[in-house]
């Protein structure tokens, strides 16, 4: 055991300083695709394997809740699409499902503001420490790795007053991953109902938001639990999930 004391001191502090300081890895993260030009590209929709791209009335829009980051559209039409940069910030977590559609429609702003106000009111009591219950509702397994990473020394989520809990009775936040399988609908609902108010639901990843590539048969978790915060990505990065947890609990705006 003495050996481990020395091993533990070997690399010094490896923990990120984010959100107090910027983090290079978080800022260099290649996020979901955005639309850089409202160019007339009526054939762009056919590029997307998940139907995230729509072209109507001369406007190309991309639903980041469906984007699985395959990059096909960026490769084929770099004049219209580009990778977004950075895993954190207000844009990396959406407070309304339609806010994941870029460029945002004018009415989205109002919806987001309304959702933000409602969430802030609900979570006013959660400012200090929060407890999170994670539920996998049919993920591919990679999201669990990224959430698990938050408990490691690099992200060290406890330093921000966020703790994972086994019991839904102790949980303030429900962190859901996965495309929403039939088998998990019941257990997910039961977990949500077991949580005391106020409770916040985060849908982490494109699978949870829309079913992703399985969108034809599974459509995400919003039909089972009321989602407050949406995180794009397939899977989202640990910074993206951390960012969403802090936004959901009012620790970050």
């Amino acid at each position, binding site marked *: *055991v003495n050996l481990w004391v020395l091993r533990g001191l070997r690399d010094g502090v490896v923990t990120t300083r984010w959100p107090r300081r910027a983090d290079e890895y978080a800022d260099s993260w290649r996020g979901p695709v955005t639309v850089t030009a409202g160019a007339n590209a009526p054939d762009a929709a056919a590029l997307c394997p998940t139907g995230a791209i729509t072209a109507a009335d001369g406007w190309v829009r991309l639903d980041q809740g469906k984007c699985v980051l395959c990059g096909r559209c960026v490769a084929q039409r770099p004049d219209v699409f580009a990778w977004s940069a950075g895993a954190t910030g207000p844009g990396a977590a959406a407070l309304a499902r339609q806010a994941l559609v870029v460029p945002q429609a004018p009415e989205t702003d109002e919806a987001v503001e309304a959702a933000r106000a409602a969430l802030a009111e609900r979570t006013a009591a959660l400012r200090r420490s929060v407890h999170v219950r994670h539920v996998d509702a049919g*993920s591919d397994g990679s999201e669990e790795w990224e959430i698990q990473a938050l408990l490691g020394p690099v992200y060290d989520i406890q330093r921000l007053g966020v703790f994972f809990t086994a019991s839904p009775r102790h949980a303030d936040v429900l962190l859901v991953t996965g495309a929403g399988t039939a088998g998990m609908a019941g*257990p997910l609902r039961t977990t949500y109902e077991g949580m005391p108010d106020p409770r916040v639901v985060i849908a982490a990843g494109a699978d949870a938001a829309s079913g992703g590539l399985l969108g034809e048969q599974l459509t995400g978790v919003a039909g089972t639990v009321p989602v407050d915060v949406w995180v794009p990505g*397939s899977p989202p990065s640990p910074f993206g999930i951390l960012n969403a947890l802090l936004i959901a609990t009012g620790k970050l705006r």
Partner: protein
Amino acid sequence: MTITSTEPSVIALWDTLAARIDRGDRFAGLFAVPRNGAVMLSAQVATSGSVDTLEAALPSGAAGYPALTPRVGAAFWYERVIHDETGIVPEGHPRLAPLIRPGNPEDHALPRHVAGYGLFTIPHGPVRSGVFESMEYLVETPGEAIPHLNMRIFYKHRGIAARFTGMTVADGVLLAERAEGIASVAHTLAFCHAVEAIADCEIPREAALVRVVHAELERIANHLDVAMRLADAAGLAVATARFALHKERVLRLVSALCGSRFGRGVVVPGGVSAFPRKRPAEILGDIGKLERQVTADADTLMATSSFLDRLRGTGPLLPGRAREHGALGPIGKASGYADDARVARPYDAYPLLDAGPVAQHSAGDAMARLRVRFDEIAQAFHFIKQALSDFPERTRLTLQAPCPPADGRAVGWAEAPQGEVLYDVTLDEGRIARCQPRSASFHNLVLMHEVFAGDILTDFPFIEASFGLSVAGAAL
């Protein structure tokens, strides 16, 4: 080269299969395949150099067939899946409970297989304590010992195999990456190997080297994850943090090479989509540093007696059972049964590279499985260093060989961190007519039924972590 042969009847298929297993071939899978209005039973047999497919048609309208499980025990879960998906009854199957389809919730009463005073069943899952994938363990126990264990994986069944049907090959690559997200590279490799076999396409040497680098980085990340979970189960906070740190470093290296922490988007039919974004010499520097750090912590872990005491003799899989079942990957290797696709049926750049010495373990317990994983980490570093040293100069490199969509059927394979992954792919007019993935997680998870001899409830997390499987890959 994949050989498909058709037998005149199911019984003849079982006879051929049993004869081949007696000769030393390995049972690798059994599926029901609808074809031209009939249902074919399609068995996969791994042999040195290839994976063969043996088939027999069921009589039209047949409601059942004589089960294979009584003759080949490894078919136990495969036949339950056939029953779940088609309703066809494998007659004589010992336990036809739902496996990947929930069935009727009314039937979900806690099963009792062991009777006796004070015995009860602990339902553990599907929402479990901690960050886990969803599955349910039904632990029958008198309080400490675990005389019987049942597993329910249907909570996570996503219908991956069905989703493949009708997809383009390019979309199929994306879905294969997400079949078992922590083994994205291996699944995509197996899928692409099948597509390349159909198109008779040989990939460029430099693309094959890049594939090896990514496949081995994925293996290192997965094995570090297992070491981290085992250390966590033993309450070794520093060791848990150290292995979590190393795993994060590997994932960051992967994302520096390709933009994805899981190597997604790298492997495409005919080669790779791009070369690593770092120069080989730079990656070699990173790899050398990582290897020194991981090795030092692994050595310390294997000298921590309080940790080893929890692993030694825990969750033993007997060598005879491992061979009989055809246990894949580290689980088989720890029980003296090593059938590594990289060696037995080499692909990509593996024929060009030296596999190095592979230590043999036969104790079959959680400690042997961890030893195998540390051996495999060392071997993975060895492969990566060779692949990068061999890497030609940046000028005049070919990313992909042309791989025009052709019609046909082939089985592709790759050695995932969990063991061999198989993809049986049929292409028709440039689209996927059928794609049947088979993960090592599915083949191996059933073995967890029988490794609790003498182990108690507190051994459970060690045994589960030492298996290192993915529920997503098992339930597909």
